[in-house]
């Protein structure tokens, strides 16, 4: 339905939680291939399988590496507060429409149920015009519009893939992250979403003990802050990635730092939320 509505030129979005989003992977692949802008929200719960309804970050791979078939990417935003959840709806649509690409908000079951004060943008909704490629009815003055992901000749299909990959490369300019006490940090925590929020507290606790800890929080998971992490790894030789999963984003941090830093991992799984104290304990025992 989102495919149809987006293809007909309107703003369309849907939301789900892990098992439901797994079911949607077919659609995500088609929407990405047909280059339809839309927004999807996955309020992640613990898995695999039916799992639990408690918060988790176990769908990182599914969000940033694909999930459906074929070479495609979603724009992935990882809010860490209710305000950011609101903002990412606007950012999600803005980026989706700019790049004609589906955007995903990757939240978790805790953020999804959190209550915090928010400010809605004063300017209201983003302006929207019906795109010229949309199926709105073929008027006499133009050729038919077709929304499709079928390009049967391999030469054409490779061309489409090349175009998509160029688009994903161009998206790198949209990378966003937040740094806390990174300037003098000797150890860097990398975490997103709820984990990052917990790690803010870890930075405070560590600093009280005289440990020079900093935090890098990717806000966009795709595009990923590859360049910034590569740069930081020249100076910061010890890093730790904290996630509510078995270790997913840690792979991207290791790829980004390319062996220049030691990258440790701490994670809880299956709906368990790590406490600041246990994270600090891990840092004190393994990185100091």
């Amino acid at each position, binding site marked *: 339905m989102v495919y149809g509505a987006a293809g007909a030129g309107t703003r369309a979005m849907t939301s789900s939680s892990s098992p439901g989003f797994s079911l949607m992977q077919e659609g995500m692949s088609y929407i990405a291939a047909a280059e339809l802008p839309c927004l999807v929200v996955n309020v992640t719960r613990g898995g695999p399988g039916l799992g639990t309804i408690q918060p988790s970050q176990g769908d990182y791979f599914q969000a940033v590496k694909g999930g459906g078939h074929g070479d495609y990417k979603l724009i992935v935003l990882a809010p860490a507060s209710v305000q950011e959840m609101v903002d990412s709806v606007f950012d999600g649509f803005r980026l989706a429409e700019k790049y004609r690409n589906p955007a995903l908000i990757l939240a978790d079951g805790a953020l999804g149920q959190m209550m915090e004060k928010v400010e809605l943008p004063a300017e209201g909704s983003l302006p929207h015009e019906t795109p010229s490629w949309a199926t709105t*009815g073929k008027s006499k003055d133009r050729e038919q519009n077709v929304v499709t992901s079928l390009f049967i000749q391999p030469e054409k299909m490779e061309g489409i893939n090349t175009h998509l990959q160029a688009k994903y490369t161009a998206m790198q300019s949209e990378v966003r992250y937040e740094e806390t006490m990174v300037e003098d940090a000797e150890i860097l925590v990398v975490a997103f979403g709820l984990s990052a929020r917990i790690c803010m507290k870890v930075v405070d606790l560590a600093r009280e003990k005289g440990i020079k800890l900093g935090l890098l929080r990717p806000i966009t998971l795709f595009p990923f802050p590859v360049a910034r992490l590569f740069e930081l790894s020249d100076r910061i030789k010890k890093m730790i990635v904290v996630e509510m999963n078995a270790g997913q984003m840690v792979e991207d941090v290791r790829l980004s730092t390319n062996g220049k830093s030691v990258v440790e991992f701490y994670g809880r799984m299956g709906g368990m939320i790590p406490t600041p104290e246990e994270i600090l304990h891990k840092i004190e025992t393994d990185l100091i």
Partner: protein
Amino acid sequence: MEKTLVSPECLVYDNHPETLTGTPFHYCPGCGHGVVHKVLMEVIGELGIQEETIGVAPVGCSVFAYHYMNVDMQEAAHGRASAVATGIKRVRPDKYVFSYQGDGDLAAIGTAETIHTVNRGENILVVFVNNAIYGMTGGQMAPTTLIGMKTSTSPYGRESATMGSPLKITELIANLPGAYYVARHAVHSPKYVRMLKKALTKAFEYQKLNRGTCFIEVVSNCPSGWKLTPVQTVGFIEENMLPYFPLGEIKVPDEKTGISTLVKNN
């Protein structure tokens, strides 16, 4: 336009409605898909709604329907055409929206979409081309394959004990309150083609009334999948398909009250 495909001495027909692009069909000789395409597009042309119509193509032999149908179209994932059509109609309620689907698409992988689309009474037209086989992928058994029919995945013939009975999905959905107009037609003789044309015209007119889903099954053929000549398929349809999939209206609205009821004997 690849007109050169047909040499002048072989050209028996050179008049297509403006609503067809003129691209030669890729269908096998004698295939019903081309006839259904032409009738559907003729109706859209005659009703003067080409500019207001948005179609959805399926996955199946008619996957390239948008190469031939000269209206705005979207290509859906296998079985999801009626869900895509729902999305279009919900945001463009003033347009005419149709989905065009095969039996594998509509009655196997897309069963859930089909049933829920009709159950919601989406105000669209579903054109369901039933050739009792998966034509595109090389003639595998479909939910509509008849008992005894040999296909590449039922080489000894379909039998109900292990493969179930041919699914009459049209009768099934006709029972749903959201179904407004339901009929079964065929294209293997000019008489039936004319009847199909009338039904399609009615269905588009009903869409203006906003009263529910119009669903038209077309009993068609697949010479390649059935391993019969086009002429032999006509006999097969008459002798085997029609007794099981009887033609006619299945659910019709009352002209005055607008309330739809099932036609008796169905």
